[in-house]
C-alpha cells in the first residue's frame, strides 16, 4: 500500500543514495540490503526502510532494524506542575535517583527510549520545581540522548551542502551552503546553459550546478591533476542521462588550447594511439596492440561505487581471471583500448566545445589562486554572461579584482560575503542561536562584455584611477555610497 502511494522518486529504493538525518546531523549512505550502517553511535540496517517514502522517520529497535515511527507523541508529562524560579534548587548531584547502572540495565532490556526518558523524569527530585521552560529543555535533552530516531531524506543541494559544511568543511574549502546558494544565483545557473565549472570541492559545486540544470544543457568541468573528483556528485543520485552532456577537460591543456597549439597528438603515448583511433573507427581493431598508459581518471570517476561493491567487483574479476586467463587478457586490452579511444574522442569533443568561446557562464571554487584561472577561463565565456569565483580568503580576490579591471572585458565586478544567522523561535524564548559560523568564504562576481582589445590601455588607466584614489577622491566616493 505504501509503494502504491509513492510518486516517481518519492520512495526509498535499493541502490538509491539516501541521507540519514538525526536532529541537525546528516550522513549520506547508499541504500543496500544487509548492510550495517553506523550513524551517531548507533548501528542498524536499512532493509526495512526500502519501500517507504523519503522523509519517513524511523525508530531503531534492538537488532538494528528500523521501524517507522507513528506520529509524534506530545509532551510526556501529565503533571503540569512547575516552579517559577530556581532560588531553591541546589546542585547536590543527587537529584537523579536512577544510577548509571540502572539506566544501562533499562537500555539492555531493550526498553524504548521514550520510556527511559519518562523514568528519568519520574526519578528526578528537582523536575517538579523547575520552571516550565527548564522542564521543556530537560525533556528535549534527554529525548535527544535516549530516543533513537532517524529520518531518511532524499539528497539535494540543500542537504548535501549543509552536510559537507558540518562534517567535512576542509574538503569543500569551507564553502558554506549560503555562499553556494549565492553562486548558483549570481551565475544564473538554469536549464539549457553551457557552463564551465572549475572546482576542488569534492564535486559538490558540480552537483549543485547539475541539479539546477536538470539534465538540460552542457557542463564542462575543468580539472587539475589526473581527473575530476566527484565523490559528492555521486551522493546526489542523479539519473544517468544527467551525465550525457557532462564533459571534462584537463586544466593543464588550457594554455595550449588558448594558444592554438592544442592537439590530441600532444597527448601522452601518442603515435600508436593515432593508428588505433583510425583502425577502430574503421571497425578493424588490432587486438595485439598494447598501450601501457593506465588512465588515472578511471579511479576518481568511479568514486560513486561503495567500498563493498568495489571489493565484490574485484572478487568476481579474480575468479574469472583464473578461469580464463588468456581470453581475459585479450578482453582487458581491448577494453582498455576502447576506453582510451572513448576518452580521446570525448577530449576532442570537449576541446571543440571550449573553442567555440560561447559558454554561458563560469563557476570557480577551488583551492588554487583564482587569478590565473579567471584570466584564462574567461576566454571561453561569451559576452554578457555572469561569472562567479569563490575563495576561502579575501586577499586573493582583491588581486583578482584588480587584474580583471586591468584586463577589461568585465563589468559589474562585486566582492561580497554573506552572513548567516539561525534563530530559536519558541513562545517567549525567541533569540538568535548562540553560535554562528565565523566564515563561509568570499565571492567575486561580474558580467563579461565584449573585450575591446585596442582600447584596453585606456580601460587600464581608468581602472587604476578607480583603484587608487587620492585621499580626496576617497572622500567623494564615500559620500556617494
Amino acid at each position, binding site marked *: 500500500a505504501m509503494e502504491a502511494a509513492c510518486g516517481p522518486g518519492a520512495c526509498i529504493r535499493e541502490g538509491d543514495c539516501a541521507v540519514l538525518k538525526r536532529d541537525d546531523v546528516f550522513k549520506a549512505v547508499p541504500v543496500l540490503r544487509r548492510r550495517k550502517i553506523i550513524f551517531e553511535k548507533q548501528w542498524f540496517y536499512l532493509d526495512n526502510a526500502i519501500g517507504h517514502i523519503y522523509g519517513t522517520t524511523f525508530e531503531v529497535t534492538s537488532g538494528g532494524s528500523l521501524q517507522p515511527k507513528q506520529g509524534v507523541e506530545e509532551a510526556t508529562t501529565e503533571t503540569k506542575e512547575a516552579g517559577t524560579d530556581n532560588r531553591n534548587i541546589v546542585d547536590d548531584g543527587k537529584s537523579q535517583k536512577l544510577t548509571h547502572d540502572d539506566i544501562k540495565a533499562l537500555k539492555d532490556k531493550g526498553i524504548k527510549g521514550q520510556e527511559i526518558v519518562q523514568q528519568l523524569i519520574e526519578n528526578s527530585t528537582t523536575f517538579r520545581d523547575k520552571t516550565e521552560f527548564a522542564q521543556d529543555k530537560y525533556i528535549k535533552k534527554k529525548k535527544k540522548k535516549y530516543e533513537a530516531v532517524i529520518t531518511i531524506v532524499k539528497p539535494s543541494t540543500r542537504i548535501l551542502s549543509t552536510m559537507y559544511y558540518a562534517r567535512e568543511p576542509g574538503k569543500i574549502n569551507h564553502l558554506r551552503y549560503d555562499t553556494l*546558494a549565492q553562486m548558483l544565483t549570481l551565475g*544564473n545557473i538554469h536549464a539549457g546553459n553551457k557552463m564551465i565549472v572549475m572546482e576542488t570541492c569534492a564535486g559538490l559545486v558540480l552537483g549543485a550546478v547539475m541539479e539546477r540544470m536538470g539534465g538540460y544543457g552542457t557542463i564542462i568541468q575543468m580539472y587539475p591533476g589526473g581527473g575530476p573528483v566527484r565523490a559528492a556528485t555521486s551522493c546526489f543520485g542523479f539519473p544517468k542521462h544527467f551525465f550525457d552532456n557532462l564533459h571534462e577537460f584537463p586544466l593543464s591543456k588550457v594554455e595550449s588550447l588558448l594558444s592554438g597549439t592544442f592537439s590530441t597528438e600532444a597527448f601522452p603515448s601518442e603515435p600508436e594511439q593515432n593508428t588505433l583511433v583510425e583502425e577502430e573507427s574503421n571497425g578493424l581493431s588490432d587486438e595485439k596492440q598494447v598501450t601501457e598508459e593506465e588512465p588515472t581518471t578511471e579511479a576518481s570517476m568511479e568514486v560513486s561505487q561503495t567500498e563493498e561493491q568495489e571489493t565484490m567487483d574485484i572478487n568476481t574479476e579474480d575468479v574469472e581471471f583464473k578461469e580464463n586467463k588468456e581470453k581475459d587478457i585479450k578482453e582487458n586490452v581491448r577494453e582498455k583500448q576502447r576506453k582510451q579511444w572513448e576518452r580521446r574522442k570525448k577530449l576532442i569533443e570537449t576541446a571543440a566545445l571550449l573553442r567555440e568561446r560561447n559558454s554561458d557562464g563560469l563557476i570557480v571554487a577551488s583551492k588554487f589562486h583564482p587569478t590565473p584561472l579567471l584570466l584564462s577561463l574567461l576566454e571561453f565565456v561569451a*559576452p554578457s554572461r*555572469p561569472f562567479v569565483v569563490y575563495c576561502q580568503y579575501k586577499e586573493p580576490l582583491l588581486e583578482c579584482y584588480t587584474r580583471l579591471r586591468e584586463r577589461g572585458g568585465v563589468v559589474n565586478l562585486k566582492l561580497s560575503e554573506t552572513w548567516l544567522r539561525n534563530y530559536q523561535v519558541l513562545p517567549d524564548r525567541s533569540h538568535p542561536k548562540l553560535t554562528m559560523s565565523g566564515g563561509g568564504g568570499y565571492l567575486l562576481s561580474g558580467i563579461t562584455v*565584449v573585450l575591446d582589445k585596442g582600447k584596453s590601455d585606456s580601460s587600464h588607466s581608468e581602472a587604476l584611477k578607480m*583603484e587608487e584614489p587620492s585621499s580626496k577622491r576617497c572622500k567623494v566616493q564615500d559620500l556617494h555610497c
Partner: protein
Amino acid sequence: MSFVEYGDTIKDGDTAIVFLGHESMFPVKVQHGTVTQTKYGVIRHSTDLIGKKYGSKVTCSKGGWVFILHPTPELWTMNLPHRTQILYSTDISIITMMLELKPGSIVCESGTGSGSLSHAVIRTVAPTGHLYTVEFHQQRAEKAKEEFREHGVEHLVTVTNQDVCKNGFGVSNIADAVFLDIPSPWEAIGHAKSALKAEGGRICSFSPCIEQVQRTCLAMEECGFTEINTLEILLRVYNVRTISLQIPDLGKATEDNSGLGFDSSNPSNQGSLCANLQQGSVQFKSGVPLREMVGHTGYLTFATKS
C-alpha cells in the same frame, strides 16, 4: 532573448539592460524606431541595438558609451519598477536552495508583488516546472502578467488575483514548494499545506518582524510541518581600494626603517603590501566594507511537509 534562455543578438521586442557603469543601469524595451536618452546621449534602437551582440559597447550620440547586457532575473531585480517592497538576490538565493527548486519544480507563491522573486523562480523551474502566483491587488496582478508576457515566460506562470489567506492558491496537491511574503502568513499555512503534494514538499515564509515569525512557526507546528527553521542572511559588499597609511615620524633616521618590519628594497615581500618610504607611507590593498549596509530584510522560516 527570454529570461529563461540566452540569446546572442539583440532583437526587436527584447528587454535589455543598459549598463552605464558603477551599478548605474536601467532596463529598456527594444523597439524599432525608438530612441533612449542617457546621460551620454541618445541610443537609436534600430541602428545602435537591433542586430548587435549582447555585451557590446554602444557609442551614444555625445560620444560616451554604454554596454548592453542580456537580461537575467538578477539584473531585473536591480532594475525593475517597484510596485511594492521587493526581495533581493541574497534572500532569493537562499530561498531557492532551501526550497530545493530545480527544473520541473511546481511552486506556489504569494504575493506576487513586483515579481522580483517570481522571475528568479521561473528561471529556475523552467522549462518543465510551473509557478502559481497569487496577488490580491488587481492592478499589481495585471502588471505582473504583462511583464511575464513581455519577458517570454508567460507559459511558465499562472497569475491569480485573489486573497491567499481566504481562498488559497487555487491548486491542491500539486506543489513541491510554497513561498509566502504576506503580512499575515500564519493565516495561509493551511492553504499552503493543501497546495503541497501529498508526499510532501518545502515551505518558506518571509517576515520582517519576529512577532510574525512567532505566529507563523506556531501555525506550521499545528499543521504538522517539521524541520521548522528560522534564519536570516546578510550581504556584505566590499569596495576594493588601495589604501595608503602614513608612517609616523618618531624621530628615527630613514635607514632605521627595517625596525618597522618593512623591507624597502623588496616591496613584494609581503604580498600586496608595498612600502613607499620616500613619501613616508605604506600602501596595501583592502576590501573596505561599505559605510552603510542592509542590516535586516526579513526572517526566513523554512519547514518540511512530509
